[in-house]
C-alpha cells in the first residue's frame, strides 16, 4: 500500500453526474411503458379502527377507472417488508390493503385508472365507514399490559438484554451516578425522490418491477411472499435513485404495484406525493431512553445501565432488529466492562418506523452522549477530557464478544477535533450577558460495517476485461445517489491499473446480477462490496500477469501492468493492451480475462466520529443558530474524498434537523400534523452552517485499501453534539429532541424559576 495511489482517495464525480445535472437521467417516475396505467393509494384518515363498510361504486363508475382494490379483493397474506433474506425470523403483520387500520396513513385501497388525475379523483370518491378504536400514541402507555392491543398479541412485542460484567454491583460503587431520560423524535427521510415504482406483467405472468430500491433481492422476496408467486417469475430492476437514507430499504410500493399489474396484466405506475411519502412509508424510530452512568472520582466510567423503549409505530417491520442494533453500539465506544442494555419494543397507532440513516445509532448516541456531558458537568470536568479518559483504543475487544473493533481511532478524532476547533479556548470562554447565549458542545459516535457476526454477509461479483480493453463489473450494487458505483470503479481501476472511465457497471437486475446477501444496508457497501470488488479485481490482475507472462514469454515478476497496457520490464518497446491480451488469451488458451467469486465479509470493525459545534441561542425566542461546525471521522481511508465530504455534510444536515427542527407530530387523535414541508421543517441551505470536515485515515486492516463506512456513521454524533452545546450555552438540561424553540424557552423558564 506504500506505492502511490492513482484512483483511490481522489475526487471523481459520481458516474451519472452529467446526466443528472442536465436533466437527462430517467427516474422511475419519468418512465412510460406502452399501455401503462396509474395507481393511487387510499390511506386511512383515522389512526385506529375497523372498516365497517367501504363503498367503491362511485369510484368504479368514474370513466377511465379500471379497477379498485381493497381488503375484499386482494391477498390476505401477511408479510414483513423488513425481511431481506430467507432464513431470518420476522413477525408478519402487514398486508397489501387492510380492513383494520392501525395508523393515520394505513393503506386501505388502491385505484387504478388510465391517468393519474382520474385515479386521484376516483380515490376521493371512495366512502369508508369505520368503527373507531382506542388510539395509543404514547409508547409508555403502549407498554402497559392493559393497553388496548393494536395487534392480537398485545403491544409489547419484543425485549432484549445485552450485558457484560456485573453492572448492578459496580453501579453501587460509583462516586457519582447520573441518570437521564431522553426522547428522540420520529423523523422523515426527506429524499428528493419520493417512493415510486412500476410493475409490468407479460403474457405468461412474469412480473418485472422497476424500482429505486436498496435491495433487489429483498424486493423479489417480498413480492414473492406477498403475492405467493415463485421468485423466478419476478424480476426486479433497480432504477436511478434520488436519495433513500434507509427509507427505500423496505419494499413498500413494490408488492402493491406488482399485485395491481399482475391482476390487470398491464403495466402500472405508482408514485407517492410528499404527504403520502411522509405518512405512508417509514420513519426514523422514535425512542425513549433512560440511562444511568456511574463514575469514580477520577472520571472513569465504572458502570452503565441503559434502557431503550422503541416505538415501532403501527407495524413491526424492523422493530426487533433496530432495538438490538442500538444496543451493540453501546459496547463499542467507551471502555465500560460492566454494562447492561435493555430494549423493549412496542406498537403505537403512529407512523411505521424503519431504517433511517444510522439505524438507531443517532438515537442511542443522543441518549448516551447527552448523559455523558451531564456526568462531566457533575464531575466539574471538561467533557473532552472526560471522554478521552474512557474512549476505546485501537484493537480493543468488544466486551460482549461481538466483532472486534479493529483499528479504532476515536481518540485521534477527539484530539484532532479539540485542536482544530480550539475547544479548550471556546469551552472555557466566560459567558456573556445579554439576549444571545453562546455555547459549545461535542459528541462521539460509533457505527458498524456490515452484518458480520449477525446475519449472512457476502456478495458474488463477476469482473471481465473484454476484447476492447474495458472492464465490466457485474454485481448487485445499489447506488442510491451517494456514489457506490464510482467507489467500486475506483477500487477496480486501482487494482487493475485501468482508467475508471473504462470500467462499466451494468444495471442492477435480479435476472443478471449475481446474488448479494443484503444490498445497501448496514453500512456494508464500501467495506463488504468494496472488499469484494478489490478481491475480484486482484484475481483478474493475477490473470493479466499470468497470461501476460505467457504471451510475452517472460517471468511473471517482470510483467508490468500500467494504464491498460502490459509489457515485460526488460523490453519496454512491446506493449500490448489489456484488450489484446484478452483476445490472445481467449484464442490461445480458451480462457477469458475475468473472474467470478463470492466474497465473505471478513469482520465488522467500527467506524468512529467526533463532532464539535458552537451555537448561539436567542434566549427570547428559543431559536438556535449554528456558528461553527467541525466533523472529524475515523473512516480508515476515503476511497473518494469528494463523496466522503458530501456524505458528512449531508449527514450533519440530517443531524441538525433531528436536534433542532424535525419531528413528525400528531394531534390527540393520531392525525399527522406535519405531513408537508411547510409543517415539517428540514434544515435548508440558508440555515446550514459551513461544515468543516477532517478525516483520520489510519487504515482499517480488513477494509479495501483500509476503508470503512462513513455515510451513516457521519450522522451519529450530530444531534447530541448540538444538544450539548445548547445545554452548555444556557446551563440547562434539554431532554426532548428536537430542541424546538418552545422546549428551549421552557427549559430557560424552569431554570429561572429554580433560581428564585
Amino acid at each position, binding site marked *: 500500500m506504500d506505492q502511490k495511489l492513482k484512483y483511490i482517495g481522489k475526487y471523481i464525480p459520481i458516474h451519472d453526474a452529467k446526466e443528472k445535472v442536465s436533466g437527462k437521467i430517467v427516474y422511475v417516475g419519468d418512465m412510460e411503458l406502452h399501455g401503462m396505467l396509474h395507481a393511487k393509494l387510499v390511506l386511512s384518515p383515522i389512526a385506529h379502527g375497523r372498516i365497517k363498510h367501504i363503498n367503491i361504486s362511485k369510484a368504479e363508475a368514474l370513466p377511465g377507472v379500471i379497477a379498485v382494490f381493497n381488503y375484499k379483493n386482494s391477498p390476505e397474506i401477511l408479510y414483513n417488508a423488513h425481511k431481506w433474506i430467507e432464513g431470518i425470523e420476522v413477525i408478519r403483520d402487514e398486508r397489501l390493503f387492510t380492513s383494520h387500520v392501525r395508523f393515520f396513513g394505513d393503506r386501505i385501497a388502491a385505484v387504478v385508472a388510465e391517468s393519474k*388525475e382520474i385515479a*386521484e*379523483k376516483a380515490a376521493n370518491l371512495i366512502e369508508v365507514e369505520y368503527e373507531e378504536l382506542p388510539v395509543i400514541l404514547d409508547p409508555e402507555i403502549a407498554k402497559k399490559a392493559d393497553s388496548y392491543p393494536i395487534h392480537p398479541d398485545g403491544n409489547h412485542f419484543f425485549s432484549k438484554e445485552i450485558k457484560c460484567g456485573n453492572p448492578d454491583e459496580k453501579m453501587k460503587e460509583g462516586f457519582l451516578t447520573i441518570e437521564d431520560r431522553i426522547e428522540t423524535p420520529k423523523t422523515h427521510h426527506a429524499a428528493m425522490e419520493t417512493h415510486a415504482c412500476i410493475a409490468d406483467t407479460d403474457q405468461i405472468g412474469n412480473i418485472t418491477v422497476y424500482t429505486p430500491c436498496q435491495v433487489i433481492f429483498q424486493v423479489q422476496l417480498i413480492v414473492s411472499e406477498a403475492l405467493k408467486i415463485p421468485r423466478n417469475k419476478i424480476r426486479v430492476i433497480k432504477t436511478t435513485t434520488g436519495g433513500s437514507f434507509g427509507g427505500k430499504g423496505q419494499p413498500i410500493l413494490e408488492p402493491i404495484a406488482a399485485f395491481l399489474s399482475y391482476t390487470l396484466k398491464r403495466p402500472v405506475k405508482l408514485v407517492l406525493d410528499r404527504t403520502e411519502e411522509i405518512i405512508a412509508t417509514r420513519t426514523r424510530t422514535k425512542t425513549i431512553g433512560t440511562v444511568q452512568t456511574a463514575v469514580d472520582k477520577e472520571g472513569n466510567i465504572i458502570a452503565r445501565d441503559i434502557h431503550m423503549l422503541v416505538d415501532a409505530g403501527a407495524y413491526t417491520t424492523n422493530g426487533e432488529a433496530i432495538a438490538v442494533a442500538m444496543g451493540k453500539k453501546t459496547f463499542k465506544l467507551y471502555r465500560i466492562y460492566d454494562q447492561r442494555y435493555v430494549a423493549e419494543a412496542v406498537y403505537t397507532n403512529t407512523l411505521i418506523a424503519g431504517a433511517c440513516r444510522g439505524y438507531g445509532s443517532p438515537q442511542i448516541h443522543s441518549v448516551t452522549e447527552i448523559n455523558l456531558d451531564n456526568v462531566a458537568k457533575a464531575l466539574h470536568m471538561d467533557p473532552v477530557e472526560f471522554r478521552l479518559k474512557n474512549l476505546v483504543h485501537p484493537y480493543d475487544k468488544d466486551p460482549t464478544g461481538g466483532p472486534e473493533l479493529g483499528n479504532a481511532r476515536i481518540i485521534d478524532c477527539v484530539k484532532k477535533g479539540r485542536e482544530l476547533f480550539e475547544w479548550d479556548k471556546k469551552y472555557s470562554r466566560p459567558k456573556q450577558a445579554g*439576549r444571545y447565549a453562546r455555547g459549545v458542545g461535542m459528541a462521539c459516535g460509533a457505527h458498524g460495517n456490515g452484518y458480520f457476526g449477525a446475519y449472512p454477509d457476502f456478495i458474488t461479483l463477476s469482473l471481465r476485461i473484454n476484447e476492447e480493453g474495458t472492464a465490466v463489473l457485474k454485481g448487485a450494487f445499489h447506488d442510491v445517489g451517494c456514489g457506490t458505483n464510482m467507489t467500486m470503479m475506483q477500487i477496480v481501476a486501482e487494482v487493475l491499473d485501468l482508467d475508471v472511465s473504462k470500467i462499466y457497471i451494468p444495471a442492477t437486475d435480479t435476472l443478471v446480477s449475481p446474488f448479494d446477501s443484503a444490498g445497501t444496508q448496514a453500512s456494508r457497501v464500501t467495506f463488504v462490496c468494496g472488499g469484494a470488488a478489490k478481491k475480484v479485481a486482484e484475481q483478474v490482475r493475477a490473470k493479466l500477469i499470468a497470461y501476460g507472462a505467457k504471451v510475452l514469454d517472460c517471468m511473471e515478476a517482470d510483467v508490468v501492468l500500467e494504464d491498460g497496457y502490459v509489457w515485460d520490464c526488460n523490453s519496454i518497446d512491446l506493449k500490448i493492451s489489456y484488450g489484446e491480451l484478452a483476445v490472445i488469451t481467449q484464442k490461445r488458451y480458451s480462457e477469458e480475462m475475468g473472474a467470478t467469486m463470492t466474497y465473505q465479509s471478513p469482520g465488522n470493525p467500527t467506524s468512529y466520529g467526533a463532532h464539535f459545534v458552537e451555537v448561539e441561542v*436567542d434566549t*427570547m*425566542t*428559543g*431559536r*438556535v*443558530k449554528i456558528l461553527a461546525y467541525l466533523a472529524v471521522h475515523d473512516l480508515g481511508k476515503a476511497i473518494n474524498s469528494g463523496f466522503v465530504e458530501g456524505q458528512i455534510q449531508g449527514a450533519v444536515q440530517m443531524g441538525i434537523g433531528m436536534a*433542532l*427542527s424535525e419531528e413528525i407530530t400528531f394531534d390527540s387523535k393520531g392525525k399527522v400534523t406535519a405531513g408537508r414541508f*411547510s*409543517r415539517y*421543517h428540514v*434544515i*435548508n441551505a*440558508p*440555515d446550514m452552517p459551513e461544515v468543516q470536515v477532517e478525516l483520520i485515515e489510519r487504515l482499517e486492516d480488513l477494509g479495501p485499501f483500509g476503508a470503512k463506512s462513513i455515510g451513516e456513521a457521519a450522522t451519529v454524533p450530530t444531534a447530541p453534539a448540538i444538544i450539548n452545546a445548547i445545554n452548555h450555552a444556557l446551563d440547562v438540561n434539554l431532554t426532548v429532541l*428536537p*430542541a*424546538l*424553540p*418552545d422546549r428551549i*424557552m421552557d427549559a430557560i423558564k424552569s431554570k429561572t424559576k429554580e433560581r428564585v
Partner: protein
Amino acid sequence: MDKFTYKTPVTLEELVESLKSANENTYILGGGTDFVIQMRKKRLSQGVIIDMTGIRGLNEINMDEDHIRLGANVTYSQLYNNPFIRAHVACLAQMAIKVGSKQIQNMARLPGNIVNASKAGDSIPVLLALDASAKIINSKGETKQIKVQDIILGMGKTILNRDEAIIEILFPKPTINTRSSFGKIGHGARNELTIANVSLAMITEYNQINNIIEKACLVVGAVAPVAFHAAQAEVFLQSKRPSRLLIPQLADILQKQVETVLKGNVSSKHKINDIRGLAFDVFENIFTDVI
C-alpha cells in the same frame, strides 16, 4: 376533455375586455406562487386564466406629489432592489427580502399576497402600517381605490369580485422623519425561509431635532386571521424619546396584546415569546443610531 383558456392581455383595455366574461371559473394570475399550488390542491382543471404579468406599464415603481405607486406586476425582488424603497420605506424592502426564497421573490407580487389573504402573508402588516390602498379595475373599465385594510375580510376572503383586478398598490409618501422596519419569525426552528409565525411592521415619525417619536404605527401579522394594529403600543410610543429602556416595556405591551388575541390557545404560545424578540429586533433596527 377539461381545459383552460389562457388570456394574456397586454393593455388595460384588453384586461377589461378579458374581465367581461368573468365568472366563478375565472382566475387572475400574477406570479402564480400561490395560484399554482391552489390549482393542484383544488384540482382545478378548467376555466379561464387571465395572466396579468404581460400588461405593459404595471411593473413600475413611481412617485407623484403624495404617493408611492407600485404597479401590480412589481415583484418582491424589484422592491428590495429599489434604492428609494430601501432607504425610505425600509419596512417594505425588509419584508420583500424575507418572502420565500430568491425564486419566489423573482416571481411573486403584492396583489397576489393581498388576494390570497393568508394569515401569514408577509406584506399585509406592512401594507396596513403604510396605510396602503389598492387601485382596482372592473369589467366595465371603472377604477376605484380601496384601503388594503378594507379589502381583506378574513383568511382567504376579500371583497374582490370575479370581474375585478388590482392594478396598483399605493401609499402616502414617507416624510424625512419616517423610519420603519419589519421582522418576522417563522414556524418551527428554522431561521430563514419560513412561513411567519409572528410578524411585526413598525413605522414611526421620528423628529430627530427634538428626539421625539411623534407617531408610531405597529401592525402584528400572523397572529389573528387578519393583521391588526397594536393600538396600545402605538399610544405608548407616542411622544417618547427612543431609548433602550423603552424596549422591554414595548415588548410587554405587545406580548399582552398577542396573549389577549390568542385567548389561551396553547399550541400558539410561542408566538408570545416571538413577539418579544421581534419588538427588540424592530425597535433596535429603526433607532440603532440614536439609542
